[in-house]
C-alpha cells in the first residue's frame, strides 16, 4: 500500500543513498550485503520512485482542486493578523513541499549521473599553478626587467669605450696618456656594472628561488606522489590531438638566449594560457615542468655569475688595477650580455609539428590501451 508522500520520499532517499554507495564501491556496504539483497535494493528503489512520482502527481491534482497548491492562482483573502501568519507559514510549507516531488522525479537522473560519474571517473585534477606560483613567476620577470634596464646603459657605455679602445689601437700601448684615460674610464664603468649586479642579483635570485621552491613542491605533490608514470601519459593525452600538436602556442623555447625578463614573461603568458584552456592538464603539466627545469638552470647560472662577480671585484681590489683592461673583463661583460640581455636568439622548439598528410584509415584495435 502506498504510504504518504513524506514517508515515501524518505524511503526513496535511503534507497538512493544505499545504491549510491554500492555504485561508488564503498566496501562496507558491499561486504555486508549479499548480491540478492543488492538486487532487491535496486528493485525497491525503482518501486519507490514510481510511488513518489504517483503520490506527487496526486497531491498536485488534489491541490489544484482545492486551490492550495503553490502554483494555484493566488486569491486575495482578507484575514486578521493571526490568520495571515498561519497562512504565510502554510504557504511556506507548501512551497517547501515543491522540491520533494521534483526530487522524486529527478532521482533516477541523479542515480544515472552518479553511476556514470563512478564508472567513468575523470582523471584527478592537478593544481600546479596556485596563485602564489603565478605571482612568483610574474615577480621574477619584473625584477629581471628592472636589473636589465639599469644595466643596459652601463653595458652600452662600456661597449662604446671598448670599441674606442680598440680603434685607438691602445692594446700594447697602455703608456699613452689617452689610452690610459680610456682604460681608467673603462675600469670605473666596469666596477659600476659589477656593483649594480652585486646589488640586484640577490633580488632576482631570491625571486627565482621562490618560483623554483613553490613549483618544486607542487610538482612533487601533484605529479610525484599522487600519480604513476602511466598517469603522466594519460594527462598528456587528455587534450584532443589538434590542440596538442598543431597549436603554435605549445612551442616552448628551451635553452634559448632570450632576455631573462622576456623568458619569465613568456612563462607567465604560458601559465595564463594553460590555465585558461578548459581541461588543459597536459598544457599545465608541461608548462610547469618546463618552467621548473629552466628556472633551476637559471638559478645555477645566477649563482655562478654572482661568484664570478665576487671574484672579479676581489681581483680588482687586490691588483689595484682600476685602469687596466683585462681580457677577463671583456669576457665577463660578454657573459652578462648573454645571460641577462640575450644574444643570438635561436628558438629550439622541442615539439615538432606532425606531417599534415591524412592517414587513410584509422583502425582501432580492441587490444589498444
Amino acid at each position, binding site marked *: 500500500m502506498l504510504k504518504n508522500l513524506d514517508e515515501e520520499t524518505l524511503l526513496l532517499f535511503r534507497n538512493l543513498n544505499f545504491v549510491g554507495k554500492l555504485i561508488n564501491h564503498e566496501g562496507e556496504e558491499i561486504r555486508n550485503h549479499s548480491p540478492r539483497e543488492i538486487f532487491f535494493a535496486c528493485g525497491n528503489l525503482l518501486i519507490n520512485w514510481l510511488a513518489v512520482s504517483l503520490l506527487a502527481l496526486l497531491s498536485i491534482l488534489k491541490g489544484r482542486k482545492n486551490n492550495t497548491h503553490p502554483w494555484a492562482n493566488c486569491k486575495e483573502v482578507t484575514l486578521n493578523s493571526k490568520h495571515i501568519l498561519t497562512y504565510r507559514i502554510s504557504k511556506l510549507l507548501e512551497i517547501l513541499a515543491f522540491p520533494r516531488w521534483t526530487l522524486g522525479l529527478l532521482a533516477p537522473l541523479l542515480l544515472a549521473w552518479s553511476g556514470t560519474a563512478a564508472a567513468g571517473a575523470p582523471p584527478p585534477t592537478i593544481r600546479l599553478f596556485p596563485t602564489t606560483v603565478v605571482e612568483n613567476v610574474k615577480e621574477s620577470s619584473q625584477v629581471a626587467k628592472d636589473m636589465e634596464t639599469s644595466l643596459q646603459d652601463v653595458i652600452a657605455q662600456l661597449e662604446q669605450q671598448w670599441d674606442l679602445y680598440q680603434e685607438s689601437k691602445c692594446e700594447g700601448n697602455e703608456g699613452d696618456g689617452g689610452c690610459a684615460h680610456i682604460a681608467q674610464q673603462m675600469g670605473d664603468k666596469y666596477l659600476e656594472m659589477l656593483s649594480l649586479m652585486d646589488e640586484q642579483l640577490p633580488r632576482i635570485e631570491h625571486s627565482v628561488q621562490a618560483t623554483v621552491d613553490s*613549483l618544486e*613542491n607542487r610538482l612533487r605533490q601533484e605529479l610525484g606522489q599522487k600519480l604513476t608514470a602511466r598517469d603522466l601519459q594519460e594527462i598528456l593525452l587528455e587534450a584532443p590531438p589538434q590542440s596538442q600538436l598543431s597549436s603554435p602556442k605549445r612551442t616552448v623555447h628551451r635553452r634559448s638566449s632570450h632576455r631573462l625578463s622576456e623568458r619569465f614573461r613568456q612563462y607567465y603568458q604560458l601559465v595564463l594560457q594553460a590555465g585558461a584552456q578548459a581541461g588543459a592538464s597536459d598544457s599545465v603539466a608541461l608548462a610547469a615542468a618546463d618552467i621548473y627545469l629552466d628556472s633551476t638552470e637559471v638559478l645555477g647560472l645566477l649563482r655562478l655569475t654572482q661568484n664570478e662577480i665576487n671574484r672579479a671585484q676581489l681581483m680588482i681590489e687586490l691588483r689595484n688595477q682600476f685602469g687596466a683592461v683585462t681580457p677577463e673583463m671583456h669576457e665577463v661583460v660578454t657573459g652578462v650580455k648573454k645571460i641577462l640581455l640575450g644574444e643570438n636568439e635561436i628558438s629550439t622548439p622541442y615539439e615538432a609539428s606532425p606531417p599534415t598528410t591524412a*592517414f587513410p584509415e584509422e583502425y582501432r584495435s580492441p587490444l*589498444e590501451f
Partner: protein
Amino acid sequence: MAHQSLFSALRHSGTLVAALWIAGCQFLAPDTTTECALPRTTNINQALAQTRNELERSECHLHFDAYFERLLETAAGDPGPKHSEYFSEFLLWANAQDIITRRNAQEYYNRYFNTKFVSLPDEYSNCAYTCRIQEEIVQQMKEELLQKDRGLLKITGNNRAYAEANSLHDSILLLLEATCTACAAAPSSPPSP
C-alpha cells in the same frame, strides 16, 4: 627334426627382434613432420596463414616470439595501412587459442601499433618507484620508440601516428625529468600553500 626346430626357433626370434626394433624406432627416430617452420613468403596474408597453421601445434607455442618477429619482417617488406588490423586479429586469435595471454597480446600490439607507451610502470607513484629506475625507463622508452618506428612508420606507413608517438615520448621524458628532480630535492623551506 632338430635342424627344423632350430631353424624355426631362429626364425621366430628374428621376427621378434625385428618387431621390437621397429617398435623402438617409433620412439627414437625424429619425426621431421613436427618441426616448427617459420613462414617463408613475402606476402603478409600468406605469412599469417602459415603461422596460424604452425601455431596450431602446441610444440610451436614456445617459438611465438620468433614467429611474431618474422611476421613483422614480412610486413615491413610489404607495407600497408591495414597491417595493424591484421596483426590485431592475429594476436586476438593467439589469445583465443591460449598461446599467449590477453596482457601479452595487448603488449605486443601496443608496442608496435599504438602511440601510447607500455614501458611506463603503473603500480606505484613516481616518487616512490619510477624515479628510482628513471634511467631504465628512459632506455626502455627509447627502445619502444624504435619499435613504434617499425610498426607505425615502416609497416603501416602512418606518419602522423609516429609523429604523435615521438612527441609524446619527448613530453613524457620532460615531465618525468621535472617530476624526478622535484622528488629528489629535499624541501629546504616550508611548503607553500
